[in-house]
């Protein structure tokens, strides 16, 4: 049995079902992200684990103990909020020590643990400050230290980086991941930012409309999305309309061009969608890429190290990325172009 077990979780607010039959097992020390658009139910699942929402049905088991009916203050769970939620009347050190004081620890022990926590987040000298004297990034690190000080069984992070500016967001996410690894604490991280989810997590749960669409490692989620929603939500995706010619061997046509996928399509017939990531497409012909499509350059965006080009292939706009090379200027808009793809990089979307 896994360390944190969510089985058949359901949550309805009035007639709306926000979470539908949600199952997930999280191993001890694992970092799992819930990724999805707003309103997909990811925060609701997190709040049910924390105890702030009562599940309509289903159970939550932590380390063999069923906590579904426990109140939030009995669950020993650390939580970090988007809005920091530091106690404005307490100093940084008192904030970090709050949970320890509640649990009735001795003064010396509290002071020791608080100092240790402040060192962990790199704010050892700011213990005497009040929250309003800190920057957003510092406040969120204090909130993290406060949540970790009580040595919780599970750490819950509710979009902790969304209120911060871009630069701090990147550095703090690395810091959170490093601290999480160091302490080996089981963590659930809720975010709508795919880059955060992919870069930090052991596993990602992509959610939509209250269900877990796909659960997998960031590599799996990105490279082998199983549903159209996951494919479109995570990363940029090009869609190509195709028509099945022979499902058994995987022959399809894209516009007029025949394409051999060399794999069975499980009896699919008629029109299907093929999906491909911008980085698997190359401009021009290449020996290792058997599928060649022709079109016209529709847009060119020079982003610095990367050039993003959109090619119109028979009405489908296909995005592709090429690296900038100082000796080769980007192609002109409106010129004819050929793009080549390896057939194994073409994803067939099943739904």
């Amino acid at each position, binding site marked *: 049995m896994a360390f944190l077990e969510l089985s058949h979780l359901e949550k309805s607010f009035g007639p709306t079902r926000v979470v539908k039959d949600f199952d997930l097992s999280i191993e001890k020390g694992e970092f799992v992200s819930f990724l999805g658009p707003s309103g997909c139910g990811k925060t609701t699942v997190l709040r049910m684990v924390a105890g702030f929402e009562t599940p309509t049905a289903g159970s939550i088991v932590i380390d063999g103990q069923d906590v579904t009916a426990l109140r939030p*203050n009995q669950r020993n769970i650390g939580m970090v909020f988007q*809005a920091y939620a530091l*106690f404005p009347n307490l100093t940084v050190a008192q904030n970090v020590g709050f949970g320890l004081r509640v649990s009735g620890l001795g003064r010396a022990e509290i002071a020791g643990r608080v100092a240790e926590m402040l060192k962990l987040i790199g704010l050892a000298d700011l213990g005497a400050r*009040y929250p309003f004297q800190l920057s957003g990034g510092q406040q969120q690190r204090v909130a993290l230290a*406060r949540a970790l000080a009580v040595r919780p069984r599970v750490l819950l992070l509710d979009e902790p980086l969304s209120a911060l500016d871009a630069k701090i967001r990147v550095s703090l996410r690395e810091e959170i991941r490093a601290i999480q690894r160091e302490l080996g604490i089981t963590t659930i991280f809720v975010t709508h930012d795919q880059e955060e989810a992919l870069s930090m997590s052991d596993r990602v749960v992509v959610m939509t409309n209250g269900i877990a669409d796909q659960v997998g490692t960031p590599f799996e989620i990105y490279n082998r999305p199983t549903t159209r929603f996951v494919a479109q939500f995570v990363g940029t995706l090009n869609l190509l309309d195709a028509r099945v010619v022979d499902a058994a061997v995987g022959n399809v046509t894209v516009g007029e061009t025949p394409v051999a996928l060399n794999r069975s399509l499980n009896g699919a017939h008629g029109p299907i969608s093929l999906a491909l990531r911008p980085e698997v497409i190359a401009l021009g012909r290449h020996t290792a890429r058997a599928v060649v499509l022709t079109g016209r350059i529709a847009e060119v965006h020079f982003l610095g190290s990367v050039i993003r080009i959109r090619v119109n292939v028979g009405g489908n706009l296909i995005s592709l990325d090429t690296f900038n090379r100082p000796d080769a200027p980007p192609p002109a808009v409106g010129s004819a172009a050929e793009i080549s793809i390896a057939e194994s990089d073409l994803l067939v979307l099943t739904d």
Partner: protein
Amino acid sequence: MTLRRIWSWIIILLGAAYFLLPLFGMLQFSLKMKRGVYSFEAYRVVLRDPQFQQTFSYSVILALLTIVIGTLIVVPTAYWVRLKLPRLRPVVEFITLLPLVIPPIVIVFGYIRLYNTSSVLPLTGSWIGTNILVLFGYTTLALPYMYRAVDTGLRAIDVATLTEAAQSLGASWTRILATVILPNVLVSVLSGAFLTFAIVIGEYVFAALLNLNTFGPYMVWMGGNRAYEPSALAVIAFGITWACMGLIQLFTRFSKFSSAKR
């Protein structure tokens, strides 16, 4: 333009005179107890009067107890309404405003009818019962001021998230109220408390009808029987009220973390 300015100034001066002249007259009169010279004789007499000391300290104690009871009732109520029953807020607000609409005389007659010696709960039959009754009466009178002050204070903090943060750290409801909510609305509680203090110190109707020797009835008795001392008393009462207002300002300004951007 300049003519309009002159007119504005004239109106301001007239308004100020309307308020300040009676005060000045009262102050001047209170200093004239000794014929021909200005002296603090009236104040000396009043402050020396054992009845003044007794009624005043009684009223102070009642005021302080009212503040404690009011805080214990209002802070958890306002907190709970904000946290769990936001739809009830207009209703609760309306209820807390009722004491401004219903005159104290009506309330106290109601009390006497409900709690007289031949009723189920004969509070007026004993000294302690009467005091309990008057304390709850004063708490009712203080409700509009207390509730508004505390509710405004709660608006300034993120009640829901702070509560959840404290809960996830293991805190119980009483702990959250005492260590998270109350300290953060303390300035508001204090401003409500000073208003309550000023109201209770001068309150007459409740005390007179429940036959309690508080400061209010003493002032009225003085006014009917002496010449100079009532003015001195009024100046003292006025000074206390103003000191309360000043203290509200002071506490708001010097509270340690109130400059926080929340």
